[in-house]
């Protein structure tokens, strides 16, 4: 066991991990952060996406020990000061059905809007192309991202 620390959603957390512990499992089982989901466990589905030092990564393909001293942000962190404009739009447009893909999609779409506040439909599709959704056919998800993007003023909240 090695003692490491993360800045998780703004808060410093100390924990003990084994070299073969996977970040996704540590977040869910040791740190109680349940938004990242395990879908495929091999990088394909995007359900486990989190921000690592500001960039989205597949937490099922990251070793917990690699992230010592790094910043991790999950959907729990995004919503800390009230829902973001994107989250509100997802709710308004009923963008999800079962919701299993929602945290991962939210991370990917948030990353896009942080970098590129006015994406085209093609850019939105590219940004979430690594997030599989088995329920919705994607249309209501794409609509929400594009509608938030079109509404200039709210980007501060992303």
């Amino acid at each position, binding site marked *: 066991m*090695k003692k490491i620390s993360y800045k998780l959603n703004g808060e410093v957390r100390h924990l003990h991990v*084994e*070299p*073969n*512990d*996977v970040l996704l*499992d540590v977040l869910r089982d040791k740190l109680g952060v349940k938004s990242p989901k*395990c879908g495929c*466990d*091999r*990088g*394909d589905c*995007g359900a486990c*996406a989190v921000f690592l030092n500001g*960039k*989205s*990564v*597949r937490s*099922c*393909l*990251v*070793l917990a*020990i*690699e992230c010592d001293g790094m910043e991790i942000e999950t959907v729990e962190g995004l919503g800390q000061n009230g829902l973001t404009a994107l989250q509100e739009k997802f709710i308004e447009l009923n963008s999800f059905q079962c919701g299993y893909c929602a945290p991962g999609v939210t*991370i*990917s779409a948030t*990353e*896009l809007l942080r970098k590129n506040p006015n994406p085209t439909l093609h850019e939105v*599709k*590219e*940004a979430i*192309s*690594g*997030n599989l959704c088995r329920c919705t056919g994607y249309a209501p998800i794409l609509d929400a991202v594009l509608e938030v993007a079109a509404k200039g003023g709210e980007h501060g909240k992303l």
Partner: protein
Amino acid sequence: MAIAHEFQYEKPATLAEAFALLTRHGRRAKILAGATDLAVQLKEGVVTPECLVDVKGLSELDPLEKRDGRLVIGANVTFSQLAESALVRGEIPMLAESALTVASVGVRNRATIAGNICSAVPSLDAGPVLLVYDAVVVVAGERGRREIPITEWFLGPRKTALLEDELVVAIELPLPQKRHRGVYVKLGRYRGEDLAQVGVGVLVTGDDEYKVAFNAVGPKPVRSANLEALLRGKKLDDALLAQARAAVPGEITPITDIRASREYRVHMAQVMLERALRAAVALLAGASVDVEHLI
């Protein structure tokens, strides 16, 4: 799912420490870069190292810069960095475009191009661009440093010229002196995750020199000397393209697997070679081409 196999984790701060770890553990050490390949292999129990050497703390592996007429890509450079770099987009747009065909943003944010060529799977998307630009792989270990031409790097599926006490420091691409444009066309079943079923890369210069490379249609990515000789010095027209298409089956050795049949791969390699060549010539002439949607 947890990783069942237990190993030691080291994150050296200097190259010397990294080399010492490789010398000490030999074949039982595995280098850890973006882990997008390695983590899957660890989970599946395909590799069982006793020590993982995380190279992301080695600043010598970070550069992405122009040096002595070469584009130097440090081993820690990710596909996202390549796709977003103004330097890469300006000097070798094909490299940025190839990077964007790899998986999805969340994978590209960690996956390195060095890890890609070290994984050495037949479908690797970095293969064609590195082959047509005559890239050199710079490797180093306690016994010294060597440069391996990319044509000698791939030995077969998951086999490279890297020795067990060495690591990749950088990949270097000589910047062509002549006007040039490269194009990579990748056939996948869908955007976002899929490995190439067929990949074709070409490089065309202003004085009608052509370079051609394929991936996913043989045990390793390859250059095609015959196609290059057939095209050399000639203007691209319908008759020449017909000859080139006809020569493709003799240049590749695809198999039938879960992702495509042999026949389909051969046919698509012909179609894609033609489109890649036409696109490169058009781009060189100043036309705008949607390279992302050639197929």
